[in-house]
């Protein structure tokens, strides 16, 4: 000890000086007051009830699936615009409230809640989330019920779509889309000042028609896919929060059920082998996850240090019955009859955040994430696309151990400058049967936040990262895979990145924010696969409030994403090179204006074009694909007329136009491709005028503040 002190005396002195400065300047908490005379007689605590009802109508002209993707406004016509909310609260602390929105649309949502302040709360909620897919889809397949699709009587099978003479006559439109409906019941019980218990049961249904595709050897087809998913989940948490520590223990159970987990379809082509007239897909099987976790923190009594911890153990299972290996006559179900899938997931984390000096903070985490697939690999004789036997293969299982160490330090160098350094080391150890045994991504960065004046601050961050890997085991690649390929997530990579975030109150009425990001990725050791990627992003907003009643703003953004990848078709041709360049813009402006006590106006305009250019170099100059582009223009105007403190009218108009071009879809009809019977999906496009007029009425009775 003496030796240590003698040789490190200067260091010890420095530390002592630093700590002394910190301790000397530490806050002295004020004495707790006697609050017995604090009556809060002027406090207008909410007591009584109030409610608001909005009733009106919307009319959408030109709406389609593209426009109504997540709102459900998917056809021309009128829609009810209804919403309501309200609350009741008693002097004793009993309360009830509700909030219902978009009741006239599939995107309706709402909750009702009740409880007693500081004791318990019960809440029932509903959330509807429509997803509309493509607007144009046609198919000759007819539903036979029970997730089975057949072809109409008189169908003429052929070797290619051109020979399907009954195709055009058989095409019928189908609506693609589904609704996600979630009902949740939750409860909270507060026990004393430290304990609380939360529980939530949630049932989510996803019901509708999606689409999928399949093949018979070299002939493929797109076919509607019924979706009938149910996920029930339950969470229960017990929390303890003391003055210096906390702990929460949570159980999570989630059970996914697919009520139509197979899809059978007729073969519209001439079968390659006798009997190959039907195909069958296995759709997502039911599964369940059960997880137990504990997390919390401890305030340590020195250097303002917080220790955080968490541990989580989970078990993922799947044991749905297998289908027969094919639809061919005589095909049998493999043994065993189901997977008995068994995956263990775990996470352990320890974190520390400390302020060893008033101007210095340090923090770090050590985390372990494990995914251990304990499922027994099976050796299965498989049949290629319900056509002919393909041999026997062992099902691969993928396990990983991840260790992540991150840490950093931040220091207020000057009153106007804060600097920091940080790093992260992310190790992945792959289980057996993978091409790598490990990869390691080491990342470090530094930043400075500079605020030369109180109104302006900007943060500059820059760093680099290097991903290294173990030796590549080409023998673990699937048969016939090129041993020179380096999969994106397995490839060594060098990365350089910078970012900027700025916030400037230019004047008392003008503010400006900016964010930018720059990253270059280099996969210099990959002979085939992704070679490089470059990403640039910048967005900004400026707002001006010339007076209290008027706010004007403008925003814009620009992003690019470029990548280069190579491939190799065979010895007869040199490697090919694909270059891709994406450009995305957005520009908008708007105003919010309180014209008078009776009138409020909002105006917003948005313009967002995007362009994607792709070319491929084979034997000669680059060949360019047609440019893919999208263009969204939207103008909206909202006016509110305040008739009285209780009655308001809202008028809303918006015009939205979206157009796009996509070489993968444009002009691809059901028979365009000889060996793909397609649904004829076309790029998104819409031009919609939306008018809405609603009246809202507020009513209720709120108690006045108490007075002495």
């Amino acid at each position, binding site marked *: 000890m003496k030796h240590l002190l003698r040789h490190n005396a200067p260091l010890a002195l420095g530390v002592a000086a630093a700590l002394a400065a910190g301790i000397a300047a530490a806050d002295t908490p004020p004495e707790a007051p006697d609050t017995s005379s604090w009556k809060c007689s002027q406090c207008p605590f909410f007591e009584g009830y109030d409610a608001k009802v909005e009733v009106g109508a919307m009319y959408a002209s030109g709406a389609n699936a593209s426009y109504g993707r997540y709102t459900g406004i998917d056809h021309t016509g009128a829609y009810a615009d209804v919403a309501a909310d309200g609350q009741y609260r008693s002097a004793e602390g009993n309360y009830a409230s509700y909030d219902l929105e978009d009741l006239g649309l599939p995107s309706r949502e709402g909750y009702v809640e009740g409880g007693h302040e500081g004791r318990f709360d019960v809440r029932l909620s509903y959330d509807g989330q429509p997803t509309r897919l493509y607007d144009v889809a046609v198919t000759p397949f007819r539903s036979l019920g029970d997730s089975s699709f057949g072809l109409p009587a008189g169908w003429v099978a052929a070797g290619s779509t051109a020979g399907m003479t009954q195709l055009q006559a058989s095409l019928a439109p189908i609506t693609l889309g589904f609704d996600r409906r979630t009902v949740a019941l939750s409860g909270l019980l507060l026990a004393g000042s430290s304990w609380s218990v939360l529980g939530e049961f949630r049932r989510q249904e996803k019901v509708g028609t999606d689409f999928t595709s399949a093949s018979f050897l070299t002939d493929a087809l797109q076919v509607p896919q019924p979706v009938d998913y149910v996920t029930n989940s339950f969470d229960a948490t017990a929390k303890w929060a003391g003055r210096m520590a906390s702990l929460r223990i949570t159980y999570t159970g989630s059970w*996914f059920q697919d009520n139509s987990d197979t899809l059978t379809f007729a073969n519209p082509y001439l079968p390659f082998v006798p009997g190959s007239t039907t195909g069958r897909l296995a759709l997502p099987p039911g599964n369940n996850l059960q997880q137990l976790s504990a997390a919390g923190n401890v305030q340590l009594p020195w250097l303002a240090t917080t220790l955080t911890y968490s541990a989580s153990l989970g078990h993922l299972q799947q044991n749905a019955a297998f289908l027969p290996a094919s639809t061919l006559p005589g095909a049998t179900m493999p043994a065993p009859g189901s997977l008995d899938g068994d995956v263990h997931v775990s996470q352990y984390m320890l974190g520390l955040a400390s302020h060893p000096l008033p101007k210095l903070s340090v923090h770090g985490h050590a985390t372990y994430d494990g995914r251990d697939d304990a499922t027994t690999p099976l050796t299965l004789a498989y*049949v290629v696309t319900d056509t002919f036997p393909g041999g026997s293969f062992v099902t691969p299982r993928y396990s990983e151990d991840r260790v992540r160490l991150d840490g950093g330090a931040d220091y207020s160098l000057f009153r106007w400058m804060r600097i920091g350094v940080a790093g992260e080391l992310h190790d992945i150890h792959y289980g057996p049967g993978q091409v790598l045994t490990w990869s390691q991504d080491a990342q470090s960065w530094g930043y400075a936040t500079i605020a030369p004046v109180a109104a302006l601050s900007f943060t500059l961050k820059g760093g680099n990262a290097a991903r290294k890997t173990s030796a590549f085991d080409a023998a673990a690649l699937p048969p016939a895979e090129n041993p020179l390929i380096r999969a994106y*997530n397995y490839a060594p990579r060098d990365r350089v990145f910078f970012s900027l975030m700025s916030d400037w109150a230019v004047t008392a009425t003008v503010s400006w924010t900016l964010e930018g990001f720059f990253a270059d990725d280099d996969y210099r050791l990959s002979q085939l696969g992704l070679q490089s990627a470059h990403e640039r992003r910048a967005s900004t907003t400026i707002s001006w409030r010339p007076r209290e009643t008027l706010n004007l703003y403008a925003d814009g953004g620009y992003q690019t994403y470029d990548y280069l990848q190579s491939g190799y078709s065979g010895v007869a041709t040199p490697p090919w090179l694909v270059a891709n360049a994406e450009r995305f813009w957005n520009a908008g402006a708007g105003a919010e204006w309180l014209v008078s006590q009776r009138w409020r106006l909002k105006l917003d305009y948005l313009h967002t074009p995007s362009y994607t250019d792709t070319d491929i170099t084979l034997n000669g100059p680059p060949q360019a694909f047609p440019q893919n582009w999208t263009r969204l223009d939207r103008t909206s105007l909202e006016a509110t007329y305040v008739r009285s403190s209780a009655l308001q009218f809202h008028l809303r108009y918006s015009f939205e136009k979206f157009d796009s071009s996509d070489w993968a879809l444009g002009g691809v009809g059901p028979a365009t491709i000889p060996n793909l019977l397609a649904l004829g999906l076309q790029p998104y496009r819409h031009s919609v005028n939306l008018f809405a007029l609603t009246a809202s009425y507020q009513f209720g009775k709120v108690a006045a503040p108490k007075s002495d």
Partner: protein
Amino acid sequence: MDRRCGYGLAAALALLAGGAAPALAADAPASPPATYSAHGADTCLVCHNDAGIMALFRTAHARPNDPRGPFGHGGLQCEACHGAGAAHVKAHGKQPAGIVDFGPRAVASAAKQNGMCLGCHRTGAAHDWDASVHATRGVACAGCHTLHAAHDPVRVADTQNEVCTTCHQTRQTDLLKLSHHPLREGKMACTACHSPHGSTAPAQLVHNTVNETCTACHAEYRGPFLWEHQPVTEDCDNCHEPHGSAQPALLKVRPPFLCQQCHEGAGHPSVANSPSGLPGGTPSAFLLAGGCVNCHSQVHGSNHPSGRALMR
């Protein structure tokens, strides 16, 4: 340790300590220690009574029957968050000593503001706050939360995204792309995936890993499948860009090129797909419609005994 090096380090630490003093002075309480007002909120509300402030009484912070809240029995009311205010009252509001103010024009430092919030919330919702990115960047709680509003915009799905993208501006641009989660439609909030108060997961996710976060809603991809696709089990982000993409299905890169970043097997996986495969030439199923997924549709995994190539 080399003695010169030691003295250098000592000097550096002394400099740190010296530098610390002014910063502390700015936030240090007046001497003698601050005291509370005589009548609590009744004192404050004499002056601070405009509608914006009084909206607090519509919020969870102003529940008189909640013993855990600042307005519960024995609570410090306004001064629970704003600090002891006797000096401020004595100076007729001109002397801010001891008072902690909040918001973008606050005099109090972010650390001082957050200290008031964390006094109650550190062992609750913000239990991993201290090591979070927001904390280390000096973000104030009031930078996101509007405490006196009846409905705090950052706690409402419809408006939360506007609050987050005030700083994360480029994410606002992402949300405008062709393929996006329903955030701009108000049907989803950033906090469905991210925990802004800190978390043990990368990118401050709400669940332990990217995949656990994604499959909380997309449970159909959770598996385990009979035939697994390795990048799917490893990380959904290997193929998807969840904040928005110009490509369909939130893909980072359009098929077939996305698939060819990993697959170059003999035969069709390595085919150089050129514009000659478009409808004007010899339309190719490798390139058009779904590209590779025209046949390999079960890319997330297959439970079919013959699903080895993810085609059944």
